[in-house]
């Protein structure tokens, strides 16, 4: 059973516009969520996190929104830049702090 799901394998946006990446989860007990960014031939790198007691966390161009009633979170990138083109994973901790990841969404930002 996939506890964290990213249902959009890919997303293409124009430079300067907003990118919205979505993630759904099934376990209402998750304490926090994280987003990772991955470039080809590199390991994933931590991008931003949000506690389950908050509904928004912002860091520069990146904002994560959490809707607990819908068990849904989203990552907004404004404005999108070509360097943002990467695969984005959402993740949540299971028992013992092990992270489980969604399937990933590949973002392509066109100049």
């Amino acid at each position: 059973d996939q506890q964290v799901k990213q249902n959009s394998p890919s997303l293409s946006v124009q430079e300067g516009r907003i990118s919205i990446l979505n993630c759904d989860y099934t376990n209402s007990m998750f304490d926090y969520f994280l987003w990772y960014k991955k470039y080809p031939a590199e390991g994933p790198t931590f991008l931003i996190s949000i506690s389950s007691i908050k509904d928004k966390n912002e860091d520069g161009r990146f904002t994560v929104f959490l809707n607990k009633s819908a068990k849904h979170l989203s990552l907004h990138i404004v404005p999108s830049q070509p360097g943002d083109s990467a695969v984005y994973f959402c993740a949540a901790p299971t028992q013992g702090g092990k992270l489980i990841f969604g399937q990933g969404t590949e973002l392509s930002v066109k100049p």
Partner: protein
Amino acid sequence: DAGITQSPRHKVTETGTPVTLRCHQTENHRYMYWYRQDPGHGLRLIHYSYGVKDTDKGEVSDGYSVSRSKTEDFLLTLESATSSQTSVYFCAIAAQDSLANYGYTFGSGTRLTVV
């Protein structure tokens, strides 16, 4: 850099041969993890370690074993490689008290091809 290295970076091996991947960290973190990345599946946990000689299975552990004899090294062994184990393997480390804010630090990955 983050102080985590994986070796080798690329490997091609034949079906049925044993293969060992190495993860080395210089951060003295207690927790270490092995994940595999496959299209449509994201990152799936194979095995993890919460200290020297303390390891446990993840969600896709069949066909894999691990060992951690020193804090800095976490080895992943494919006892008899199969084509279904062709994947990109990532090692990750974590200082558990910072997981909520920073999550894991990942290595650069090992691309393994089983022919």
